[in-house]
């Protein structure tokens, strides 16, 4: 029996509790009494996957169904994978400890491009044919979703179908459809036809993609008249009415976000031009404070967690934040639960709130100006001025904080060396703010940490046509910045360039990259997100063997070029993105959704900020 085999190898791996399940609120069902077995797969280790909110929601949503048993699957860490392969143990699910290849569905959530190599590896470890085209009757259906799914053409040949957008309704519709298909005992191909009728479902094999000589996409053609030309993402119009679990799995071992997460709204009003999340989750839809409080209460009761956090893209924009935080503080104080706040825009309200929350310890504050000069911040539409930052840091220092983290990006479109060095200037100005506060009013131990990441152009943003900086350019800029960072009181961190270049390739990739993924898999590539395993040399070999050039994918594109993801519709229209791209070039800012609607197209969904 598989279970026994697994138990035999567990004493020899790191953190065996990653693989044993049995956590409180995990769901065990009688497999003979369900029709559908769904393996929810997360292509990273347990501690990371278990921290992911979307998985928690869909796991319990699926298990609410009597006909379905959803189990969790994470990427086994390398030591475990090696032991599994040695012993001939296939990828298994935590709840039943049974092989996932016998399940009806393998569902992968695409959270970041750097997990694609792990997905291929997990399919292989599962013993499921890697490519959808090679799967036959009796094989599970591989479904993918998550934020990367809108432009996941490089991994698309591995998926039977995608769910685009928010899954709460679509997932149930797909399961109902599957049941009907199963009852009718129809052939495999029929299911794909049936499921493709559900709004938001994208079946890659229903589209033929042709390429020009130069490698760009020549055409995307539906295979027949029944297939829609574009597939539109789904959103939940009313978040107060949608399912939210009142219990979540409570892990034994510590995970990355080991707490209750309350999602206060989806989307973001801001429209920063580099930010994919800000575009693909449009329009902004808030949850009512009373819905959230009710939810918080139940989750605290049902999990025993002693920490709760608010999770959204820019929580300060939540209009009911005062009421919500006040009542949440009452609940949490009563139950000896601590409330942790995400980084808020600093004003007197948020200062006051933070003081109430952190009664004792003042941790560090985080600001994200993203770019070093005003010109550059206008280009990216980041509505923060230098004055804002100076006022906020002064307020923080006067309020007793002495540690500030600043987040920036480099490699942005239209960026010059002066803009990059502006990062150093701004950091030094923050240091000066500290010393301008009288000694008796400020806390000792100043720490300013400046972290700079490399910008990666993403699909469905105004910068989707932009050229990504090469490794050499990024290294030069990093060097230039290092030289301007001559203040010892600023600690300077930056991310490694090669990994962002690879991320950029897959973020704007096409289907031909599937060959590279297979080739990379054969070379043993896995866990690219972990720097100890990432090898650009091996990736370069894989690209070369497949006759593809990474630089092709990071190049600049013209507005009229057919993009590999043009069969996907996220609500935000291409003409809006083009006008935003042009405004970026001129450094013209666009107001946020609450100041003035810019008619981006997302109002095709009936709800949220567009109709407030």
């Amino acid at each position, binding site marked *: 029996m598989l279970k026994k085999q697994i*138990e*035999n190898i*567990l*004493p020899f791996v790191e*953190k*065996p*509790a990653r693989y*044993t*399940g*049995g*956590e*409180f609120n995990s769901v*065990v069902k009688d497999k003979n009494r369900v029709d559908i077995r769904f393996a929810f797969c997360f292509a990273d280790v347990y501690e990371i996957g278990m921290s992911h909110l979307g998985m928690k929601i869909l796991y319990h949503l699926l298990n609410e169904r009597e006909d379905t048993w959803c189990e969790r699957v994470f990427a086994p860490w390398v030591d475990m994978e090696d032991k599994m392969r040695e012993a001939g143990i296939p990828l298994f699910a935590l709840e039943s400890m049974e092989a996932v290849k016998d399940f009806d569905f393998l569902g992968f959530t695409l959270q970041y491009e750097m997990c694609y190599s792990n997905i291929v590896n997990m399919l292989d470890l599962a013993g499921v044919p890697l490519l959808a085209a090679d799967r036959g009757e009796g094989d599970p259906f591989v479904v993918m979703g998550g934020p990367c799914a809108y432009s996941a053409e490089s991994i698309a040949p591995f998926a039977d179908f995608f769910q685009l957008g928010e899954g709460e309704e679509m997932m149930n519709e797909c399961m109902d459809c599957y049941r009907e298909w199963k009852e009718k005992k129809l052939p495999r191909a029929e299911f794909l036809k049936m499921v493709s009728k559900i709004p938001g479902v994208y079946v890659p094999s229903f589209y033929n993609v042709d390429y020009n000589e130069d490698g760009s996409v020549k055409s995307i053609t539906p295979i027949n008249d029944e297939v829609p030309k574009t597939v539109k993402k789904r959103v939940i119009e009313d978040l107060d009415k949608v399912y939210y679990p009142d219990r979540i799995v*409570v892990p*034994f*071992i*510590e995970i990355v976000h080991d707490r209750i997460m309350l999602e206060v709204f989806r989307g973001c009003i801001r429209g920063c031009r580099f930010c994919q999340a800000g575009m693909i989750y449009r329009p902004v839809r808030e949850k009512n404070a009373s819905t959230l409080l009710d939810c918080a209460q139940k989750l605290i*009761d*049902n*999990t*025993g*967690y*002693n920490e709760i956090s608010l999770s959204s893209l820019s929580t300060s924009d939540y209009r009911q934040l005062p009421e919500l935080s006040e009542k949440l503080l009452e609940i949490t104080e009563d*139950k*000896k639960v601590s409330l942790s706040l995400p980084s808020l825009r600093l004003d007197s309200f948020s200062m006051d709130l933070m003081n109430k929350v952190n009664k*004792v*310890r003042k941790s560090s504050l985080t600001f994200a100006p993203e770019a070093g000069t005003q010109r550059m911040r206008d280009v990216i539409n980041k509505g923060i001025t230098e004055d804002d930052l100076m006022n906020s840091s002064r307020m923080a220092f006067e309020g007793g904080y002495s540690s500030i983290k600043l987040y920036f990006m480099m490699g942005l479109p239209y960026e010059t060396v002066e803009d990059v060095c502006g990062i150093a200037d701004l950091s030094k100005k923050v240091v000066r703010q500290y010393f301008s506060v009288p000694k008796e009013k400020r806390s000792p131990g100043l720490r300013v940490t400046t972290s700079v990441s490399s910008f990666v152009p993403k699909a469905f943003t105004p910068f989707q046509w932009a050229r990504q900086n090469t490794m050499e350019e990024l290294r030069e800029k990093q060097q230039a910045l290092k030289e301007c960072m001559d203040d010892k009181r600023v600690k300077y961190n930056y991310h490694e360039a090669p990994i962002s270049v690879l991320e950029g390739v897959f973020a704007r990739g096409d289907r031909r990259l599937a060959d590279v993924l297979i080739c990379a898999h054969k070379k043993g590539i896995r866990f690219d997100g972990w720097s100890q395993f990432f090898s650009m040399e091996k990736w370069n070999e894989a690209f070369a063997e497949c006759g593809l050039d990474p630089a092709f994918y990071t190049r600049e594109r013209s507005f009229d070029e057919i993009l590999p993801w043009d069969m996907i519709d996220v609500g935000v229209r291409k003409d809006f993105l083009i006008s935003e791209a042009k405004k970026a070039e001129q450094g013209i800012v666009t107001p946020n959704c609450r100041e003035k609607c810019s008619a981006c197209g997302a109002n095709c969904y009936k709800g949220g900020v567009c109709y407030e």
Partner: protein
Amino acid sequence: MSKYRIKYSQDDKVKYISHLDFLRTVNRVFARSKLPLKFSNGFNPHTIMTIGLPLSVGITSVCDVLDIELTEPMDTAYMKEILNSNSPEGIRILGVKNAEGLPPLFGIDSAIYTARFDSDKEIDIDRFIAEESITIEKKSKRGMKEVNIKDFIRSMKVIPADDTMYAVEMHLNAGNFSNIKPELVIATLAQYSGASFCNIAVNREKIFFEDGQEVF
């Protein structure tokens, strides 16, 4: 003051969680059970709980104990029920009693374990048991130290094995005064016999106070 003593088991499902993981888990069980927990004063209020004898990773138990303080008295039958319904499957509450007047848990001084295992060759456990002295390296607060493992073993005997080739029962020093991990005894037995063991399953069966009285 309302102090309760709780006896519980930990099976295969939870044997790989560390002592720290276990503490966090048990605190969450108490929180979910909504018992009137007493909290310490200070910046980070925590429950007032004493674990009798921490269990090492990889070992199961049917006899572990902990003490917990509440702000008011509770019915012990109710406590057992509510704690069980809020515990993960691998942890079962076997009994709850009022701890007033009971000997404190720091008086624990020995425990009985069973160990089942397969060996790559035939071994003579009785010869191991009969030895007067077997010197091993043991970790102490001040680095590695040479000790006679027999000083820590009160008794040891071969018991009938079912699934595995061998099974032993051993009564070992355990607690604050003198302690030895059962897995170290088994590892020593393997080394002594020049054998290599696998499928090792160690279970803690009983815990005793100094006077020989069982702890629960």
